[in-house]
């Protein structure tokens, strides 16, 4: 009976999580937010909070201790994550990144519900539930995308004239990825092709798993600056609905001593919340992408000079 109630609690919470996603997508469509091919994610702290509150309501007769709530919140989180993987076709890396924040949100909701659902105030508290669900579902429709830029730099022992050709295009990077999320399945850069040395020329940045980012050159100053707009991203489950990279740039600074500082920048929009949490991950991932490419450029340039 106890195990059954625990499971029902987890199930009810997960069902509510799925419901808030559907409601959030519907509400976002209603207010005219661009959806593309993906669903809309409510805040990944508020939605699991609601999940935890609902689970705590089902678990109320069990009078769980704080440790019990924390343990079963973990089971709830894993159930939700499994559902997202098997039913929602969510990428494994996204789930790795999302699980800690989902767990904290669920545990916070369940701990709140544990104290909140006292016998004599149940009716009042249950009246608050639809308000909480609506708030969670409406939040994504009312927010804008979080935009940011990631900048990294590397010093290369070669003049800009030697570095520039390898910035424009480079052959396949032979090294195995060293960043742990690349090894876990996140696509990593392998090769760049260049369709011409002029503004408007097509470029393509190839990633592992046959993922290709199609790009168009927006700024072209030989041996100094290459800016490109990302016009098409691959339909990868790790990216869809979460993150859009929309512009990239390489800047070369001549240090005057035969060396060059290569600066890589990527501009992006983040569609998942809380942005401070996911922004940290975004910077970490783009840094790994930049450094993989820039270290390859450094190796090619330095071997020539």
């Amino acid at each position, binding site marked *: 009976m106890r195990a059954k109630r625990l499971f029902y609690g987890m199930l009810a919470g997960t069902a509510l999580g799925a419901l808030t996603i559907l409601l959030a997508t519907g509400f976002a469509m209603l207010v005219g937010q661009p959806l593309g091919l993906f669903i809309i994610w409510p805040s990944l702290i508020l939605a699991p909070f609601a999940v935890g509150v609902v689970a705590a309501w089902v678990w109320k007769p069990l009078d769980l201790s*704080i*440790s019990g709530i924390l343990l079963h919140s973990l089971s709830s989180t894993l159930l939700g994550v499994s559902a997202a993987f098997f039913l929602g076709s969510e990428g494994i890396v996204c789930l790795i990144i999302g699980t800690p924040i989902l767990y904290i949100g669920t545990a916070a909701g369940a*701990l*709140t519900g544990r*104290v909140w659902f*006292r016998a004599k105030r149940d009716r009042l508290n249950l009246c608050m539930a639809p308000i909480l669900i609506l708030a969670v579902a409406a939040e994504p429709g009312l927010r804008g995308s979080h935009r940011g830029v990631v900048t990294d730099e590397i010093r290369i022992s070669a003049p800009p004239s030697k570095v520039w050709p390898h910035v424009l295009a480079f052959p396949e990077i032979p090294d195995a990825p060293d960043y742990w999320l690349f090894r876990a399945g996140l696509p990593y850069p392998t090769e760049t092709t260049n369709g011409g040395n002029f503004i408007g020329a097509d470029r393509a940045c190839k990633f592992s798993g046959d993922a290709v980012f199609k790009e168009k050159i927006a700024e072209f100053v030989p041996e100094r600056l290459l800016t490109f707009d990302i016009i098409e991203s691959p339909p990868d489950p790790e990216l869809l609905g979460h993150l859009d990279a929309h512009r990239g740039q390489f800047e070369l600074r001549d240090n005057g001593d035969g060396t060059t500082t290569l600066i890589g920048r990527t501009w992006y929009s983040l569609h998942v919340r809380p942005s401070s949490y996911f922004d940290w991950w975004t910077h970490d991932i783009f840094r790994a992408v930049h450094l993989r490419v820039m270290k390859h450029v450094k190796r090619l340039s330095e071997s020539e000079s």
Partner: protein
Amino acid sequence: MFRFVVRHLRCLARVPFAAQFFDVLLLVWTALFHREKLRAIEALETAALRMPGVKRTTHRLGGIGFERDGHEFAHIHGNGLLDVWLTRERASELVACGIAEPHHVFGPSAWISFWLNTPDDCETALALLEEASSLSLLRSATTQ
């Protein structure tokens, strides 16, 4: 962090659930990084709820509250800070002999604050709760 929020962001407590949400995040933090403290909080909660007439309640500014006859006489925050309502004289005594601290918001008053760091602190904390519970019963009787 807790002191900063309590002192400078108190106005946010007017936002529904904000204080409870903050406190519960403190509790999750304690659970993840201060296991000893969590054990102490759990042990104290269990012992307090075994005291006659004591029920768990929600503290309006977040945390697990303890009440008797509908009157809250103590609450514990997610970071292990136990606030207990005694009398002004008794509170001064406890602060003077170093057992407790003045209340973290009110300062010198009938309330005291006591840090629960390890399960060893539970004995003192429970004694404070027993005293506060008895006083709460007396207060209820006087009011009636």
